[in-house]
């Protein structure tokens, strides 16, 4: 029995479940007899299947809190089903040692949602088990993870806009008017809720509300800087920084499932969303002799082809603003106020698109320098949110290896075109 208890997923035996579901009695993990040997003192409380088709369940609220004593048959948590909220009872006596999935979060059926310790001494043990097992499952389970996303698209939720807000105001402050010499922290109710959700420490936030109180947007700003500064989720494999998009390949165990990092998740999501974007393809052959000549001339001054292409795009957009417009409501063009061009940069196991703002107005040398800066920052994972996200932009993908790459775009405002380049380098334009 022990091996069953230790796994995070149990395919629940369906016949007995169906029986339980129809009689609508509270469910918990189906352990047929209670005469089993106690092999492990830390038991897992599982997300029950409340119907035969249920694959995931949402925790409405924990009836018992961490540290509470539980008696067999007592209801521990309320789980949402499509008909009603069901009380889930515990099958064992013990203490609710650690809650893995909190109120409002979901978990797959059969996965552990909490640990139950037989005796009080084991509570600490269960807690540590909970903290180690929860970190890899974080990206997949928690819907309240900080809204920092490396996104190439603008299709993500409104919450993304929050991340773009200027982050410069956040500093560690030891005193402000309302804090009474640092003893009290004055924060509005919503700010407190957000701080808890986004795991921001209130004492480090400077309040911008009336009388210096901390308000919601201070918390959001703090969360955004914190996660931009901290490195992204650990990357598997070595640190080989290559321009190529092919994955590193080393250190991956075949036949295993490795969850996405946040960045990978974002890229994947945007790719899928891009499939819903209306697209059309235009092919046009051009001779690039003039371009090549120009490049030869200013190459020495540190200007790269990327910058040249970005500048060219920007100038083209000045002449044809409709390409730099978007459509959100299905009946009007939203013309962008500025021409911002994002160029994709491949980094370890992922992709990021730093943005060159006002590419039409900036001169080619400054543009080039800026671009270099952005690429270095991107590779060092030090890009600020405002440097990689913006509402409206054009993205360019450069891949020196692929001659004719029709990329896809993410975002609700997209026009796509791909242009193979007649030169030793192939390049493809992706316009979002």
């Amino acid at each position: 029995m022990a091996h069953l208890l230790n796994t995070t997923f149990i395919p629940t035996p369906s016949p007995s479940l169906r029986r339980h579901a129809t009689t609508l009695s509270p469910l918990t993990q189906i352990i047929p007899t209670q005469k089993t040997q106690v092999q492990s003192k830390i038991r897992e409380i599982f997300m029950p299947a409340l119907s035969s088709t249920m694959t995931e369940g949402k925790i409405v609220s924990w009836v018992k809190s961490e540290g509470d004593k539980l008696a067999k048959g007592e209801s521990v948590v309320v789980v949402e089903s499509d008909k009603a909220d069901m009380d889930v009872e515990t099958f064992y006596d013990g203490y609710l040692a650690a809650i893995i999935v909190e109120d409002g979060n979901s978990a797959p059926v059969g996965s552990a949602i909490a640990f139950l310790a037989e005796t009080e001494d084991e509570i600490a043990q269960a807690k540590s088990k909970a903290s180690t097992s929860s970190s890899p499952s974080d990206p997949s389970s928690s819907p309240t993870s900080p809204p920092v996303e490396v996104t190439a698209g603008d299709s993500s939720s409104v919450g993304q806009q929050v991340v773009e807000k200027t982050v410069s105001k956040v500093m560690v402050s030891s005193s402000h008017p309302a804090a009474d010499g640092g003893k009290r922290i004055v924060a509005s109710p919503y700010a407190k809720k957000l701080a808890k959700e986004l795991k921001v420490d209130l004492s480090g936030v400077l309040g911008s509300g009336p009388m210096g109180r901390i308000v919601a947007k201070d918390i959001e700003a703090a969360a955004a800087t914190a996660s931009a500064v901290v490195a992204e989720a650990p990357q598997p494999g070595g640190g080989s920084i290559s321009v190529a998009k092919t994955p590193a390949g080393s250190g991956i165990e075949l036949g295993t499932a490795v969850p996405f990092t946040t960045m990978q998740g974002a890229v994947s999501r945007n790719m899928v969303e891009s499939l819903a974007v209306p697209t059309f393809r235009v092919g046009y052959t051009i001779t690039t002799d003039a371009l090549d000549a120009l490049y030869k001339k200013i190459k020495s001054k540190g200007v790269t082809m990327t910058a040249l292409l970005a500048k060219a795009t920007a100038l083209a957009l000045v002449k044809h603003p409709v390409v730099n417009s978007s459509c959100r409501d299905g009946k009007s063009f939203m013309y962008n106020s500025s021409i911002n061009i994002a160029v994709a940069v491949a980094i370890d196991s992922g992709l990021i698109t730093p943005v060159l703002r006002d590419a039409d107005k900036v001169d080619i040398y400054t543009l080039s320098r800026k671009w270099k800066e952005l690429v270095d920052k991107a590779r060092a994972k030090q890009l600020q949110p405002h440097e990689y996200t913006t509402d409206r932009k054009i993205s360019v993908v450069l891949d020196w290896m692929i001659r004719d790459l029709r990329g896809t775009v993410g975002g609700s405002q997209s026009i796509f075109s791909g242009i193979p380049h007649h030169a030793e380098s192939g390049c493809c334009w992706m316009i979002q």
Partner: protein
Amino acid sequence: MQSSISLSTPQSHSSLTAIARSNYKFEPSSIAPSSNKPLNIRFCGLRREALAFSFPQPKRCELQRVAVSGRGRSKKVSASLSDNGGPPKSFDYDLVIIGAGVGGHGAALHAVEKGLKTAIIEGDVVGGTCVNRGCVPSKALLAVSGRMRELQNEHHLKALGLQVSAAGYDRQGVADHANNLASKIRNNLTNSMKALGVDILTGFGTVLGPQKVKYGKVGFTDNVITAKDIIIATGSIPFVPQGIEVDGKTVITSDHALKLEFVPDWIVIVGSGYIGLEFSDVYTALGSEVTFIEALDQLMPGFDPEIGKLAQRILINPRKIDYHTGVFATKITPAKDGKPVIIELIDAKTKEPKDTLEVDAALIATGRAPFTNGLGLENINVVTQRGFVPVDERMRVIDADGNLVPHLYCIGDANGKMMLAHAASAQGISVVEQVTGSDHVLNHLSIPAACFTHPEISMVGLTEPQAREKAEKEGFEISIAKTSFKANTKALAENEGEGLAKLIYRSDNGEILGVHIFGLHAADLIHEASNAIALGTRVQDIKFAVHAHPTLSEVLDELFKSAKVNNAHVTSPFREPVAV
């Protein structure tokens, strides 16, 4: 006319007792103790049934002699009803009501219907708290907040396929809606009384002695009038605990809040009862953030605990509301000179200082205190208890020695039995029934109550803990039936599946002890249950009643149908089915 009345009496009497016998709710205590009173027992809701006729608008002088119960209203009767047995005198009015709020108004209308010459004394505005500072404006504000909440809930609308851009509000427009509504209702009330011939006397009323009332405006001479019966219906005012300084601008009570003079960024609401809860709904919908201060350990202590838990999950947790429980606000200083409102909190049990809050505004919603000062109660040897006038179950006033004060009644918030507008009105009607010769005892357990948050909460009867206590004491078993709004077609069509309905009943005889609803239109749905309790309908009978589909009322249908009564074979008082 006389003869027809006397004929109908025995008939009505017997039909009433027939129903009474089969009605489980019949309380033996309601039979009048004194033999003087006629034995026509009436249950609330059944009062008009026995009378097959209705009289046209009679002249005042004639009416004085005619009573519905069938006994001529002769002077003999009035003499036998009064304790002192002194010589009967003629009075200015049959009935004088002090206070023209909802209680007074309900009593006045019913009195006129019964043919009493009635006067009502009002020192402030007609309509009292409910119309001017309570139910009416608050429902107007809640209607606005409900709509705002819906329009701002993009997620919710999207599920229906809708999108709304930038819903906003104009504070003055909202305040005007509430004010205009209050004016309109106030005028309706005044006109209805005037049209029926009730004398509206302006001034502050005081009881001078038995059957004697004085009234007058400040600075003017007083008038003294005599009345056969007097009803005190002076209502209540918001209670402000010691240490709290109300300035009407930043530290306010519900009276000020309903004018909606400003919408603060952050407001503290002291008290998490239904008034505080409704205001939190209004303020959060209009963009404020709210903090509750509750002295007890549980938020919303008056509700059934299961409903309270669900209400917290839906009305508090997802909104910009946080709370401190188990604390008192000992000192609240209004904002001035640029400083915010400062609230000092102490632990409710240990009285140790706990925290200090600095906010933009504070709303005091710690309950209501009876408005009984200056009523002249000392003139008749009546002592108030915490301000409330002591009364018995028939609203008769009890004096300091424990005796009933003759011809003096007190209804509504002033007696503290059930501080709800419709309870006051029902009590007023009960008193008028009594003074016109038909005994009446109001069953307070059949009076529903509602909290108009979004979604609404409503209840009638006992909460689960109260029912369990009663069951243990009296030795019967209770059962609980529950259903979720998620199972209701109409609720799902509206995408408002969040909600719960709960029925507490006796499993041995099907008596309904309490019903609690939390969900869309709960305040309207509860009446099926409150009617059932008032009429003594049992679960096994009501489960055959048909409910239209698809409606929210099916939530209650579910409850009734899922209830299981042990001896359901007991014959029920079914009327003969009508062939259609």
